[in-house]
């Protein structure tokens, strides 16, 4: 990753390069062909043009977002600078669960072509911080060896579900960016262009890279963006409106522009195509036209897909930038050229149905989904909108899949030859030689220069076949995993399967076994489901507080909801989302919550403070690619701190506009917000609350029955007894299941002794209940030694004498000696008496003060006096 200056350190100023080249009257937007970026420390501004790859400010300073610039335009008022982009996604931004789909280690510099219909492609141009080079590689090709930090590689496309090879069209670069501001007037075609010194000086860190055995394109040039406080620019409504209108008549508007195809350019194109067939080499994206007037109002933006299309359709070879490079760089403005491309497009579309059909899919990456989303937003329409969008998506998927083979073939065809270093055509050779001659200087130039011309030259040198082999190296060895997660070793023998009905019943009744459904929580399930679903669908955030005593199925219900939602997301019924779970009990300190969230979200490790800062940034800043995050906070009360900042943040983030965070907080007490939260936290938590009532005996019975699922192991009465007993005590389903399990065990033992019915009956359940609920104090007193019993009696006697529930050991001991004499026992010494007292204290039949007080320690009973009397009388 190239180093760029964070906005904290360096201010960036943005201005449009040149005047708008076109105007959308309806939307009152002005389209520009370049953005001028001036950084504080550097005197020379640099230009960013559509077609270049840019870095966009994101959550993470080290890993800004990557995108390809498609359009630059200003907002209605002209005050805001907006841009439309095609996103690329980094590996660590891909949802954790899906990462394994890649099936290999991701290259550190690898990005993926991002194909998500739901993500917002319109950004604030002032969030652009830099340009970057992006190189397309063959899916099976190796990564170049000495990767410069500023180059990213694209091999695959990520469409939210799977990694797919990048289709040929996308490799095709966008329309050539407009030339620099002040290019030297007339460079000669294909001659070594003399770089503009001023421009070269200005740009920094464009490094040379070589593209071995792969088709590539290179977005060269690097710019620095200035500026601060960048938020997603356009107001949603406006952008939707605009997009909607754009989409309503795309063809018409485009056709209107198609008026005059420039002849020379068509020729150029044909020439290029021929050249391509000969050369078949890896190409760089950013071979730009050396010169073109800055004012040229190139309408670059929406054309890229189409052009890509016609390339791949006409020439069965991977789209090459070369092809688009006019052999003779002239002053011709890109406009006619593009028009030519555009002019051809419609007809091509008609010719090749496959590619034409694919076009909307491509376009949709940028344009369609927002429309869907816009349509979906009103709640009332959600269902229908969903239906429509899903239908559309299905259709598109169908088309995609039908189109894919073709494109794959073509890709294969073109990739294969490209892997052999080829002897290229004459003029290519000339160029290469030329560039070789001053390869060192070229390298330097490429690092410093920013002009398309020099980039092009540099790329040529990079392609030199002569150099390629030497620089070819084995792909970078996969790094050893930074944190290998350990696991308990596997058992050498498999676990035994249950053999009889009782064992099977026991297995089914174990709390850990996931039931097929959650009975008795349908209403709660529905509520949570609709809450989370609506938030996900609308792409907004929200909080929900769920309370209930332990064992009432809170966490289980939420997990069930998430499972269903994930299924729905897999079926494309709702947008994909990210589920994170933290548990207050499973962390050592409330602030660890940040660390865990961050780690689960991005797989980064950070200290608590740093993690908090990163998360705040992530949730506060617009991040168009963001999926909705569903965060389950279990045992919320454990996250309490004195300042309550952890809870405050957790509930504050969802209220941020760009956060798309849904927080489900679970705790035991219903009035937790009122009791422990300060007002500002409680207010942010909101009023969406749900309380899980303890199960009634009928529900408990139903739970057991549904778990048993026709395994006949219990008598009806026995079940009823268990559920009634538990419902009366706590309504804790865990307890209920545990008792049932214990009852099966007891049944099994007794069945072994005498032949029973084989079913768990009342007696077994009674025994289990007794074991679990009966207090053992009375039994303990009965089993205590004689002196211990006498001591307890002495305690009672002393209490009666004092009229208090507390006495010192010394006082009790006097009574003890007297009682011993009455019983005809030899009195014990004080040391022995203390030992007796200590033993009773250890079982907690007595409560004692610490032992350093010796004979003066105070004694209290931990059992009721009646219990003691009862236990002692029985004898």
């Amino acid at each position, binding site marked *: 990753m190239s180093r760029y200056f964070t906005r904290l350190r360096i201010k960036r100023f943005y201005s449009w390069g040149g005047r708008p080249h076109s105007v959308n009257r309806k939307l009152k937007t002005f389209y520009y062909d370049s953005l001028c970026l001036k950084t504080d420390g550097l005197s020379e501004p640099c230009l960013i043009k559509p077609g270049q790859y840019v870095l966009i400010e994101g959550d993470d300073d080290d890993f800004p977002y990557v995108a390809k610039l498609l359009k630059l335009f200003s907002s209605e008022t002209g005050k805001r600078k907006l841009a439309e982009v095609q996103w690329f996604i980094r590996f660590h931004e891909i949802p954790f669960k899906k990462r394994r789909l890649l099936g290999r280690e991701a290259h550190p510099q690898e990005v993926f072509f991002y194909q998500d219909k739901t993500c917002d492609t319109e950004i604030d141009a002032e969030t652009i911080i830099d340009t970057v080079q992006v190189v397309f590689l063959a899916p099976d090709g190796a990564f170049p060896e000495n990767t410069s930090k500023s180059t990213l590689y694209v091999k695959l496309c990520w469409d939210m579900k799977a990694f797919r090879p990048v289709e040929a069209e996308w490799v095709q670069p966008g329309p050539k960016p407009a030339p620099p501001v002040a290019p030297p007037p007339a460079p000669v075609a294909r001659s070594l262009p003399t770089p503009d010194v001023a421009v070269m000086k200005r740009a920094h860190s464009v490094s040379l890279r070589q593209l071995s055995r792969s088709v590539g394109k290179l977005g060269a040039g690097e710019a620095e963006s200035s500026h601060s406080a960048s938020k997603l620019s356009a107001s949603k409504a406006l952008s939707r409106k605009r997009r909607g209108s754009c989409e309503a008549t795309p063809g018409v508007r485009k056709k209107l522009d198609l008026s005059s195809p420039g002849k020379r350019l068509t020729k150029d194109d044909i020439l290029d195509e021929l050249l391509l067939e000969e050369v078949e080499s890896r190409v760089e994206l950013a071979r730009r036209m050396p010169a073109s007037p800055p004012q040229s109002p190139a309408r670059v933006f929406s054309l890229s897909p189409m052009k890509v299309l016609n390339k791949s359709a006409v020439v069965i070879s991977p789209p090459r930038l070369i092809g688009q490079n006019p052999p003779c760089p002239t002053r011709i403005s890109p406009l006619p050229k593009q028009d030519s491309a555009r002019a051809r497009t419609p007809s091509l579309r008609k010719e090749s149905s496959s590619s034409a059909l694919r076009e909307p899919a491509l376009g949709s990456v940028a344009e369609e989904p927002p429309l869907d989303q816009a349509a979906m937003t009103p709640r009332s329409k959600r269902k229908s909108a969903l239906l429509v969008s899903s239908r559309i998506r299905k259709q598109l998927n169908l088309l995609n899949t039908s189109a894919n083979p073709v494109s794959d073939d073509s890709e294969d065809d073109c990739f294969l030859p490209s892997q052999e270093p080829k002897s290229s055509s004459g003029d290519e050779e000339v160029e290469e030689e030329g560039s070789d001659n001053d390869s060192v200087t070229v390298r330097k130039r490429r690092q410093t220069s920013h002009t398309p011309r020099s980039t092009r030259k540099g790329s040529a040198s990079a392609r030199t076949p002569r150099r390629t082999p030497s620089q070819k190296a084995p792909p970078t060895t996969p790094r050893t995993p930074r944190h290998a997660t350990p696991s308990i070793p596997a058992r*050498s023998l498999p676990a035994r399967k249950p053999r009889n009905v009782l064992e099977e019943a026991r297995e089914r009744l174990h709390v*850990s076994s996931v039931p097929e459904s959650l009975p008795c929580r349908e209403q709660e399930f529905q509520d949570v489901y609709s809450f989370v679903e609506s938030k996900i669908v609308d792409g907004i955030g929200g909080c929900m507080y769920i309370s209930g005593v332990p064992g009432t199925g809170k966490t289980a219900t939420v997990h069930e909801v998430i499972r269903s939602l994930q299924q729905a997301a897999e079926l494309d019924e709702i947008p994909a989302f990210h589920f994170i779970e933290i548990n207050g009990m499973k962390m*050592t300190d409330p602030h660890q919550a940040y660390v865990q969230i961050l780690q689960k979200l991005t797989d980064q490790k950070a200290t608590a403070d740093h993690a908090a800062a990163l998360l705040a940034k992530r949730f506060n800043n617009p991040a168009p690619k963001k999926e909705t995050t569903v965060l389950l906070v279990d045992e919320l009360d454990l996250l309490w701190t004195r300042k309550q900042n952890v809870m405050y943040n957790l509930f504050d983030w969802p209220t941020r506009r760009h956060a798309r965070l849904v927080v489900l907080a679970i705790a035991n007490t219903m009035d937790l917000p009122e009791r422990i939260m300060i007002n500002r936290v409680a207010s942010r938590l909101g009023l969406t609350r749900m309380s899980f009532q303890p199960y009634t005996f009928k529900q408990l019975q139903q739970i057991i029955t549904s778990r048993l699922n026709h395994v006949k192991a219990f008598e009806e009465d026995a079940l009823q007894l268990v559920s009634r007993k538990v419902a009366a005590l706590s309504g804790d389903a865990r307890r209920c299941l545990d008792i049932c399990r214990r009852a099966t065990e007891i049944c099994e*033992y007794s069945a072994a002794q005498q032949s029973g019915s084989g079913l768990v009956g009342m007696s077994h359940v009674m025994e289990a209940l007794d074991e679990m609920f009966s207090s053992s104090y009375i039994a303990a007193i009965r089993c205590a030694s*004689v002196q211990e019993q006498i001591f307890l009696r002495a305690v009672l006697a002393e209490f009666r004498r004092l009229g208090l529930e507390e006495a010192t050991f010394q006082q009790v001991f006097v009574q003890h000696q007297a009682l011993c004499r009455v019983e005809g026992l030899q009195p014990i010494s004080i040391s022995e008496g203390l030992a007796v007292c200590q033993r009773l204290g250890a079982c907690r039949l007595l409560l004692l003060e610490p032992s350093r007080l*010796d004979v003066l320690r105070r004694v209290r009973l931990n059992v009721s006096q009646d219990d003691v009397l009862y236990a002692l009388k029985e004898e």
Partner: protein
Amino acid sequence: MSKRKSKDTQWTAGECVSQVRIYINVKYCVFCTYLNPRILIQSVKSAPCYRCALPYILLALFGQAQKILRERYCYQRVPSSPVGIESQRKNLLELLRRTAIHGESNSVLIVGPRGSGKTMLLKSVLKELFEVREVQSNVLLVHLNGLLQTDDKIALKEITRQLQLENVVGDKVFGSFAENLTFLLEALKKGNRSSSRPVIFTLDEFDLFAHHKNQTLLYNLLDISQSAQTPVAVVGLTCRLDVLELLEKRVKSRFSHRQIHLLNPMDFHQYIETTQEHLGLPQDFPDERFAQEWNSSIKMLCEDRSVKDVLRKHFNTSKDFRSLHMLLLMALSRVTPTNPTIKPGDIQEASRLCSMDAKANILHGLSILELCLIIAMKHLSELYDGEPFNFQMVHNEFKKFIQRKSHSIHNFETPVVLKAFEHLQQLELINPMDGPSAKIQKEYQLVKLMLDHSQIMEALQKYPQCPTDVKQWATSAFG
């Protein structure tokens, strides 16, 4: 000795030699120069002949017997078949077996007073469990003790160490507490019921774990036992009957509420039998004859009336076998070749030693002045009904005694009396009411007497050459 000699034909030399480690490997005895052909094994130089060695052999046999018994009393050997707890044993064994073989997660508490055999039960169950080969290769054991692992951080490290996970990622595991926790949870979460090895956690002094912050460790262990992760069995040992009340409500909900109570409901007859068993020598004792003689003498001993009385007293105080072992150990150490069996007197003496009052013993060693101060304090605390007093008050009381009644005690200087007072404080016979940090002059610091009146009187009776006026002063009602 002569009696022994007549029987000696039955003692084969080889047995004595190998077991008793007295090497008889000479032709000629170093003492009597008598050639004993029967024990002529190797012809080397200096060693006694069998007859001369007999006392040594006997000595060695007694040593051996004592060693066996002492080991039994001190090392808490697990008996091969514990008595009286068959049902509990079966219950626990089945539970752990299900974890080991079926991969079913469980949690259980073994509750019982100290010395009731909780650890013994667990050990014997684990021993039996690990005799199954299938279990041996599968189950991982983690022992934790609340007295050793005083907080969750240490406990986590210990778990990691015992699971031998620490070398998975080098020293990284022993990073922060938080890392350690997530690391371990992740490790346990990865497993599932059927494929990963079950882990048996035994938590000794379970109640102490409940005092850890937030009960994080217990929550997580019990949560794992209630979820479909690595199968675990959490076995807690505690002597607190109210242990469930210590658990936080969500921890409690996750605990399966299985409790095995060990309450030791044995009667005196069983107690005597067990005592006899504990005193007897095992069948595989090297010298059968010696063992037989010993065991019959023990049987006689246990039928003795005075011994029964002693044992009953002991039984009445505590059914705990550990305290019985103390008693037997003391009796055993009195056994010598000249005193070849445990006599009822030995048991009585041992019992006297065991039940001796420590504080009364201290009083025997006090000087007359200190004793007088103690008596003064006794009067003061009687007078003021247990209220604390200071040095000045005690000193005044003492002076009053000297002026009015004393004939034998002469007047001590105040610093001498203060010194005596401080010595009593050092012996902790008196305790200051507020901590040592309190900035009060020594003379006026409030203290309390930590002795019972009966102790003082008893000590006075036994005090050697106690002046009669002091005794009278002590018995008189007020000063």
